[in-house]
């Protein structure tokens, strides 16, 4: 058993060396397939972080009448936190609102002067509500509008933002669907092209396979080395793909950051290097094993 296995591995490696051009061609195609696969992973990561960062910007602010007590507001906060749609609520007190306002306008002298002259804080306290899903905001909004504490409320921001929120929700859903379809189609194309290339390579060995059978080799003994070759292709292609990814993501990183400020591609790639390489190697190896196993089956019938 061990002898057979070591012979299979030996023949796989020797066969890989001797196949020369066929090996190179197969690796190139597999490399391209892995690049597609890799870019799909990154595309999905980027799309997700882009969507997340948009999603994070969406919220509802509830502004309270100036004379509402902090106790009351915190009670309402507790009540709203009980809703299933609500992810978190930030309480912005009058003084906090004042600080934010000040720091936002510290460059504009007229405004800060005006504030000082006013002598008291004119800003309202508010609750800043984030939902799990952009589509949940309208439900939260209508809850607030029918609640018992409605008369304490000065204004809810949803009314002005609802159109934008709804539109964003639609765009994000479409983007997700588009991403899923794109991933599926491109993966399929990459898999089919690799499979076909390996099938052609094995087709060119059909006479050899026939001879091996007639000399008394078992199916496993014939198939094994081709599977080993497939694994080697997968490993080499994945390694190549990974080492291309490093400089690529390094140079692309600043551009990505322009579009998605929360995303540093380079840091992401480096901190997930092992996982990314693992995925690619796994994809390559599985592709190699499955393609060569399916392709060879036809010639093993003799």
């Amino acid at each position, binding site marked *: 058993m061990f*002898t057979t296995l070591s012979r299979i591995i030996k023949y796989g490696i020797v*066969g890989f060396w001797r196949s020369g051009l066929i090996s190179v061609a197969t690796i190139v195609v597999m490399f391209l397939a892995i690049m597609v696969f890799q870019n799909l992973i990154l595309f999905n990561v980027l799309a997700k972080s882009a969507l997340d960062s948009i999603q994070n910007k969406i919220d509802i602010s509830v502004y309270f009448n100036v004379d509402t007590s902090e106790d009351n507001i915190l009670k309402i906060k507790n009540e709203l936190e009980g809703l299933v749609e609500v992810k978190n609520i930030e309480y912005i007190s009058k003084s906090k609102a004042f600080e934010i306002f000040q720091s936002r306008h510290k460059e504009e002298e007229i405004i800060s002067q005006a504030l000082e002259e006013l002598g008291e804080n004119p800003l309202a306290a508010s609750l800043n509500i984030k939902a799990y899903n952009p589509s949940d905001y309208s439900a939260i909004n209508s809850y607030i509008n029918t609640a018992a504490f409605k008369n304490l409320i000065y204004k809810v921001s949803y009314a002005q933002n609802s159109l934008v929120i709804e539109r964003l929700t639609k765009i994000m859903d479409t983007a997700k669907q588009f991403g899923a379809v794109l991933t599926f189609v491109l993966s399929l194309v990459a898999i089919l092209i690799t499979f076909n290339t390996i099938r052609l390579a094995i087709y060119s060995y059909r006479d050899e396979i*026939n001879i091996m*059978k007639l*000399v*008394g080799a078992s*199916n496993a*003994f014939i198939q094994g080395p081709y599977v080993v070759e497939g694994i080697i292709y997968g490993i080499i292609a994945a390694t190549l793909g990974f080492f291309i990814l490093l400089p690529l993501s390094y140079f692309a990183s600043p551009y990505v950051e322009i579009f998605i400020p929360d995303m540093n591609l380079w840091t992401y790639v480096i901190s997930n290097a092992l996982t990314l390489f693992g995925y690619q190697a796994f994809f390559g190896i599985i592709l190699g094993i499955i393609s060569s196993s399916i392709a060879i089956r036809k010639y093993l019938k*003799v």
Partner: protein
Amino acid sequence: MINFQGVSKNYKNNGHSSVALEDIDFSIEPKEFISLVGKSGAGKSTIVKLIIGEEKPTKGKIIVSSHDISKLNSSQMPHLRRHIGVIFQDFSLLNNKTAYENVAFALEAAGRPQIEIDEFVPQALEMVGLANKMNNFPKELSGGEKQRVAIARAMINHPDVLIADEPTGNLDPANTSEIIKLLLKINELGTVVILATHNKEIVDDLKKRVITLENGKIIRDEKNGKYILD
């Protein structure tokens, strides 16, 4: 040992079929040496292919070492083939393996230990006079040299049956008589030898059983036969 019972073989190629063998009956006993003769296209190689299961009979039954070979499954077939050494008419060497590896492959496929391979393979190649070309690939060998690699490979497993399909077709007279001597010696050691050939001189000198084929039929089957074709 080998038994053909009412065997016919039609080859089907894109729609039209041609008859290669028609109602063949013969039986080969252990230790026999048989010459299979007949004109080109008479069906000699087809008989060889049927014995090793490369082709399936259209009709009839073939028994090899008391197995009905149409009933063997995909794991039993390799075992049977390891007991049958074949020198193929077209050599059928593995092109991406050296002479040494081609011969070693038969032993490796049979799962034999490495020590045996290291010992037997050089011996076998020496025996056919190719010790100095062990590491050549088939494309670097002459026709006769390839044929001798095929001979070494067929014998390396000490098969129960050795089938030689025109094994001397590319050899000079000296090499030819060497190979025939080798086949006779293997036969003396107890192996059944089936020799398919056009070579009248060889067959007549052997003075062994001769089966003569014509147009896919057996027209003569004689102990101590001669090569006779009209």
